[in-house]
């Protein structure tokens, strides 16, 4: 088990390297660089900047060097914990990302908890009572849930709340707390607001997970070991939870690896619609304005979260399933 985890950990730097190259290539891809965009923005707003100043800035950011030097410089800075300076905001990227990252993770984790807490019991119930009325209702809900893009759900909710209740459900804080420093009151305020986006974000995933759980469990229920357990005299509920549900969970656990990252990145769209202060809207702006080091840093953070998610699910799976533990160990 330890060896297995160690092996996975050793792969991590290699993956990060590959991802960093990919990310760098993508943010470098647009024609021109952020200075051109910057100059254009300044020009359009009426102010201007001299050619010397542009050159100076270009040197400062190393934009005049060959591309691989720029990459190495960026990586070197990253390794030392410097995420660089955002051109647009003229603030350190680390500062910009810091709090938003925390909120991103909180949102994703809450949404994840919601998904599993709802989907697993619902899936088990459906599989144990196939073709029952509740199963049919759940199936319909699931189909619609899977088919609804989460930004659409957010829009409808926001519209409903605004048009019929006269309230706004955007943001993660009440106006008083948006800029306030962290305090217990602020946390409480956050909790009051965060559940709705968390649910919106989790609906499609919950629907999908319920369906998968139901299908997996139905498969498992036909296996001979279930007959053995039943012939042993176990009660139906205990039997299902102890044996087939446990085995039906295994393939789902391995999907945490992509589900968590999908939540991180899925929150991007919802956050934009609902105006949530997490890293999604920041990335969007950075991309549009070619604020490349900010965009690059955020993308790399997404990659890192993805890798960590995969790692966690692999470890969980190995812990749950002895077959994997022994094979790789």
């Amino acid at each position, binding site marked *: 088990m330890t060896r297995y985890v160690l092996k996975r950990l050793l792969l991590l730097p290699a993956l990060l390297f590959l991802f960093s190259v990919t990310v760098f290539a993508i943010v470098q891809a647009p024609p021109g660089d952020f200075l051109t965009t910057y100059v254009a923005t300044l020009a359009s707003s009426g102010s201007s900047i001299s050619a010397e100043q542009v050159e100076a800035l270009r040197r400062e950011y190393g934009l005049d060097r060959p591309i691989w030097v720029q990459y190495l410089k960026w990586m070197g800075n990253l390794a030392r914990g410097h995420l660089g300076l955002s051109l647009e905001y003229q603030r350190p990227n680390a500062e910009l990302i810091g709090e938003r990252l925390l909120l991103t993770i909180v949102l994703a984790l809450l949404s994840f908890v919601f998904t599993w807490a709802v989907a697993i019991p619902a899936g088990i119930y459906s599989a144990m009572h196939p073709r029952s009325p509740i199963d049919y209702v759940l199936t319909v809900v699931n189909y619609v849930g899977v088919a609804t893009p989460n930004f659409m759900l957010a829009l409808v909710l926001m519209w409903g709340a605004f048009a019929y209740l006269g309230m706004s459900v955007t943001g993660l804080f009440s106006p008083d707390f948006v800029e306030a420093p962290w305090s217990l009151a602020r946390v409480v305020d956050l909790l009051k607001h965060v559940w709705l986006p968390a649910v919106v974000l989790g609906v499609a995933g919950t629907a999908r997970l319920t369906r998968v759980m139901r299908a997996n469990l139905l498969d498992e229920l036909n296996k*001979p070991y279930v*007959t*053995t357990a039943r*012939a*042993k005299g176990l009660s139906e509920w205990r039997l299902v939870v102890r044996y087939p549900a446990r*085995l039906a969970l295994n393939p789902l656990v391995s999907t945490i690896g992509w589900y968590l990252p999908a939540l991180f990145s899925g929150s991007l769209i919802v956050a934009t619609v609902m105006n949530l202060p997490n890293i999604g809207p920041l990335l969007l702006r950075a991309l549009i304005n070619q604020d490349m080091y900010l965009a690059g840093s955020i993308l790399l953070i997404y990659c890192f979260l993805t890798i960590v998610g995969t790692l966690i699910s692999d470890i969980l799976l190995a812990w749950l399933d002895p077959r994997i533990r022994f094979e790789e160990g």
Partner: protein
Amino acid sequence: MTTPLLRVEDLRVHFFLDEGLVRAVDGVSFDVHPGQVVGIVGESGCGKSVTMKAILQIVEPPGRIVGGRILFQPDSGAAVDLTRLSPKGPALRAIRGAEIALIPQEPMAAFSPVHSVGEQIIEALKLHERQWRPSGPRLSRAEARSMTVDLFRSVGISMPEERIDAYSWQLSGGLRQRAMIAMALSCRPRLLIADEPTTAIDVTTQAQILNLLRDLQRRHGTAIVFITHDLGVIAQMARYVVVMYLGRVMEQGAVEEIFHAPKHPYTRALLRSIPSVNVAPRTLLPTIAGSIPHPLGRPRGCPFHPRCPDAIPGVCAERAPALRPVGSTQLASCFLYHRDEAVEP
């Protein structure tokens, strides 16, 4: 004779498929006396495994017991009709595993792959604790574990202390089946249902398992219902044999009579058609014409009549014969012996 431990009476289990009705078990009756080994033999689709599942009330939907009785004689008191008990209720669960235990066909798939073998046996021990040990302190984990080790030893598993923590896929086929037998015996049941316990196993290992079962049966006096398609195994294991074909009992009787004086044309033809190490080699074997009909296309009347060499025109195709005595211990359902004994279709 003693009162039977298990009496199956006119059992009917039907499967309600979208394509039509499959009468998987259609009027099966037999008795199992205490300490007796009864063999149920038949080809694929004869309903032998469904009969076994019906006894334990673990027939999967869309299958349903639609008729008949399964009377089980507990230690004391009157016999209970298992078909009357709720399949998920506590009364039946107390019988499963504790009074009637199962040895399934595929020992590989019959154990959960993510729980150790020992864990699954300990679970059974604890579950039925009050039945196999009505008084005394609650079973501790250590005690259950040491009992499992003893069980392993008694079924001939070497190094039981290590094997108890193994997962089923770490054991060889023979060991797995031994562990399965240990689990089935853990609560000292009075009836053991062995569903093709050696089909997936090699012949030398099969010999070991059969010896073990015979030995355990002699020592504990457990009654066994032994289900198989192998006539050799049935001849060596059972005292009393039930021959099934397409959901019905064709013939039943003491093993010597079935093998040496078979009455039903199906039994006779079946026995003649198997190549044996004692038959002259490279000669044509007497065969049964045709093949087993599709379960949805079961013939009217006696299910065997289209393939039967002795079918009586106008009789066998019309009505199904009833199971009636044809000798001292033997019963057969065939119009050759009881021209007028039919069951309603």
